[in-house]
């Protein structure tokens, strides 16, 4: 062991051979990424980056307007925030209920391929079809107002939740599931005893992340006339009332932080 080079056994020699396959694969993927980024460099005008520094002063001037929040309407903003939370709560709740179902159907380690493929495509569509289409769709049925917003958020969110939840499911340890399978547990038992306990912490954080996103959502709620904090922000922002906008930002940052802290807490309990 002192001079390991002296005499190597043939077995060691053999394993010392360089392994090309992996190196080649890595190099190729790095190259593809580099080429794509290079090709997008000018179209995306990334070449303007020096301006980020030369014209940083402009940013400062813009930001300065936010430094004097106007708290006169704070109570109203908090009320708007609660309004949004009402809608986000229902939107999240409904989409999580459905999302659990669809995410399991779109997980390769839980459902057979002929179910996974169409379910995934369906969920892709729920995400890809612009939320506004769903918003108007529900306006046609239930009229303007929160309900149409909730439903539109819910459908879009279902697509996202299913995707995120199923990524979590696909990264579980399959051994406990095998344990249940071989104890004679049925398919649903495998899910309830083997899959859910493993993904629960991740699922609950992801749910709270989506809840937070819905609370921030403005476009859909705006178009169906459901109001909410995001919409109020737009109003102020578009009217250049940066002092009010700053207050709304503060309200939103605090809410998002609270939700995030809740999610950490929940996680700790669940892990």
């Amino acid at each position: 062991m002192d001079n390991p080079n002296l005499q190597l056994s043939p077995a060691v020699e053999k394993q010392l051979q360089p392994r090309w396959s992996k190196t080649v694969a890595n190099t190729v993927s790095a190259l593809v990424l580099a080429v794509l980024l290079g090709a997008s460099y000018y179209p995306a005008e990334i070449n303007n980056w020096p301006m980020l520094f030369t014209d940083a002063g402009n940013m400062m001037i813009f930001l300065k307007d936010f430094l004097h929040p106007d708290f006169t309407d704070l109570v109203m903003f908090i009320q708007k925030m609660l309004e949004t939370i009402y809608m986000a709560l229902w939107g999240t709740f409904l989409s999580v209920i459905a999302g659990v179902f669809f995410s399991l159907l779109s997980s390769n380690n839980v459902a057979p391929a002929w179910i996974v493929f169409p379910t995934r495509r369906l969920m892709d569509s729920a995400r890809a079809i612009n939320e506004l289409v769903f918003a108007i769709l529900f306006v046609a049925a239930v009229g303007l107002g929160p309900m149409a917003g909730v439903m539109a958020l819910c459908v879009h969110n279902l697509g996202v939740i299913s995707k995120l939840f199923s990524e979590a499911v696909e990264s579980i340890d399959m051994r406990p599931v095998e344990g249940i399978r071989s104890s004679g547990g049925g398919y649903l038992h495998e899910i309830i005893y083997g899959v859910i306990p493993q993904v629960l912490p991740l699922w609950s954080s992801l749910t709270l992340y989506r809840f937070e996103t819905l609370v921030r959502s403005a476009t859909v709620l705006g178009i169906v006339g459901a109001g909410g904090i995001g919409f109020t922000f737009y109003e102020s922002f578009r009217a250049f009332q940066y002092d009010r906008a700053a207050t709304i930002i503060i309200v939103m940052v605090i809410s998002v932080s609270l939700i995030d802290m809740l999610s950490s807490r929940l996680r700790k309990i669940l892990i």
Partner: protein
Amino acid sequence: ANGMPKQLNFGIIATESTTTLEDSFGPLVKEMEKSLGVPVKMFFASDYAGIIEGMRFKKVDIGWFGNKSAIQAVDRANGEVFAQTIKDSGERGYYSLLITNKDSGLNSLEDVLKCDGSKTFGNGDPNSTSGFAIPGYYVWALNNKTPEECFKRVVSSNHQGNAIAVATGKVDVATNNTETLYDRIPKTNPKMAGKIKEIWRSPLIPSDPMVWRKDLPEELKQKILYFFIQFGRFGSPEKVKKERDILANTSDGWGPFLASSDAQLLDVRQIEAFKKKLKAERNGDKEGIKKAEAELAQLKKTADIVGQGGY
């Protein structure tokens, strides 16, 4: 829809306003409820698409629109213009503008139309009447040019975005309108306003119409129309004063409504039809040209009857 609806749904498009919309429209709507005897529910939408489709499916009864979206409400959602808002100053409309930075060296439309390809242009949102359609017609179509061939770069944004871009010198010329440039920006950002100057002004654009659903019960329509026309006009001076105050605090500050009709939209319709014709000509689309010409002729005929601008 023969019985009276239990509730009247009033769709309001949230434009760039300075006060909270609910506070702003609340008193007016309360008066409306009192007068009509039905609850009126306000919906503030960031975009007209929801209100128009809502109207199409009878979920919205009255809407406050811009000229261009009102066309959609009329054509698509069986709506009808019945009133027009005016400014509390009595102005019956506003103007579309081209603006530049005070130090840009550009002073007139001719300077812009030199089209030397060295400048950048901030166009409006393609759905904006004053930001896109009006300059598109009067500045570009009538002069047989397009922004794309005139400028080094064309970007599009809303009025605020364009104003900032001009004030900070990020674009050389941009579209805007009198309401944004002279009412809103000076209030919120006087420093920026001082850096901007106007170099071209369009003909008058009639101010925003009120649209109702054509198939509302006749009785209700009469009540609504009566409410809008009398409000701030009829009655004791105290009542008028009170109502005028309410109007002055609604939206950007309104005066009493004027009666109006679909004819208010003729101007904008003509602009749109003309643009269609130009586009068809450019594409060599013979059928399209014919269609656009027919539409223009039809509009002309209507205008001959009801008067240009519907007055």
